[in-house]
């Protein structure tokens, strides 16, 4: 807002990076550019006053997922296979992009005070309850009677970072579900890839060792779930 040229520069760099990733044949360079894309996205989110999201994007997108992509590349050839570019793919991409752009026409502009999110009373309620200290702490203050007690005071939390309060307290169920999703994803990866080293050793042996292997793992699983 105070410096629109920064937004323009960052968005232009994002676009350039995205196009180069699409045109890149060298997979290693493409993986590194994906990390750069995430870092640029994180920078842009800081300028949009969303430091929590920027934080996540920088740590996950630019940090860990790049490492995982690089790890995957170790078992792949370095160059992408040359495939003939089909005009149908271009049409599909342009169509999808066009529909997505058309979808954004409905969105309120950045920081619009009349947007549904800003107008909805739940936003006001969340901000009030997150920022105001709980009743028993506020009782000693004289100004609490001045302003008049709000019905929202019984939900007051008094934590400066509203994002944390909304995520962990007001929407605690959602965050629990998200943690369960991460749990499930981790479990899936560990079950599919985990212990690859042991399984490979087993494969070279006779197959009748495998019941032993299962037997070894069953108490392990019990220990995790209890």
């Amino acid at each position: 807002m105070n410096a629109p040229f920064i937004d323009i520069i960052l968005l232009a760099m994002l676009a350039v990076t995205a196009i180069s990733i699409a045109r890149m044949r060298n997979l290693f360079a493409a993986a590194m550019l994906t990390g750069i894309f995430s870092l640029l996205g994180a920078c842009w989110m800081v300028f949009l006053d969303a430091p929590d999201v920027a934080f996540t994007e920088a740590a996950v997108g630019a940090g860990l997922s790049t490492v995982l992509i690089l790890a995957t590349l170790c078992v792949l050839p370095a160059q992408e296979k040359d495939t003939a570019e089909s005009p149908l793919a271009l049409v599909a991409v342009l169509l999808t992009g066009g529909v997505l752009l058309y979808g954004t026409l409905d969105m309120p502009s950045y920081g619009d005070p009349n947007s549904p999110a800003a107008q909805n009373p739940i936003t006001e309620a969340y901000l009030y309850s997150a920022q105001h200290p709980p009743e028993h702490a506020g009782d000693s203050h004289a100004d609490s009677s001045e302003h008049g007690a709000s019905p929202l005071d019984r939900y007051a939390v008094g934590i400066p970072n509203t994002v944390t309060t909304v995520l962990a307290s007001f929407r605690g169920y959602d965050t629990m579900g998200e943690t369960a999703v991460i749990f499930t994803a981790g479990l899936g990866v560990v079950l599919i890839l985990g212990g690859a080293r042991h399984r490979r050793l087993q494969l070279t042996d006779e197959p009748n060792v495998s019941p032993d292997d299962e037997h070894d793992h069953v108490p392990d699983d019990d220990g995790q779930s209890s």
Partner: protein
Amino acid sequence: MKNQLILRVVAKLLIPYILLYAFYVQWHGDFGPGGGFQAGVIFAAGIVLYGLIFGLEAAEKAIQPQIVRSGIALGLLLYIGVGVVAMLLGGDFLDYDALGHHGQHRGILLVETGVFITVASVMISIFYSFAELVHD
């Protein structure tokens, strides 16, 4: 990468601060940007960096695969446990006000710790799984 002197020295200097920063993000999430998810990822990034520079064996010695595998479930159980404890104390599920004075602060901190444990464990487990696959 075991013979890269500069990488080894810089990583040795940086890794303690990366891990410390993860805990700062974790415990300071109430006041500044951050929280369990980000802290878990940063912690995992520190361990992954250690594994990349000093080898998978060294990383698995520092943080054992069995421990992170249990951590995957432990974090989620801690999260659900906070909700169950709130119920036992007379509130609703995940109603931190039941946890006594400053219940909201306690509840949020515990729940974020659960998120931290699960996220860090999942990320490190995924890295170990991939690295073991590539290693052989």
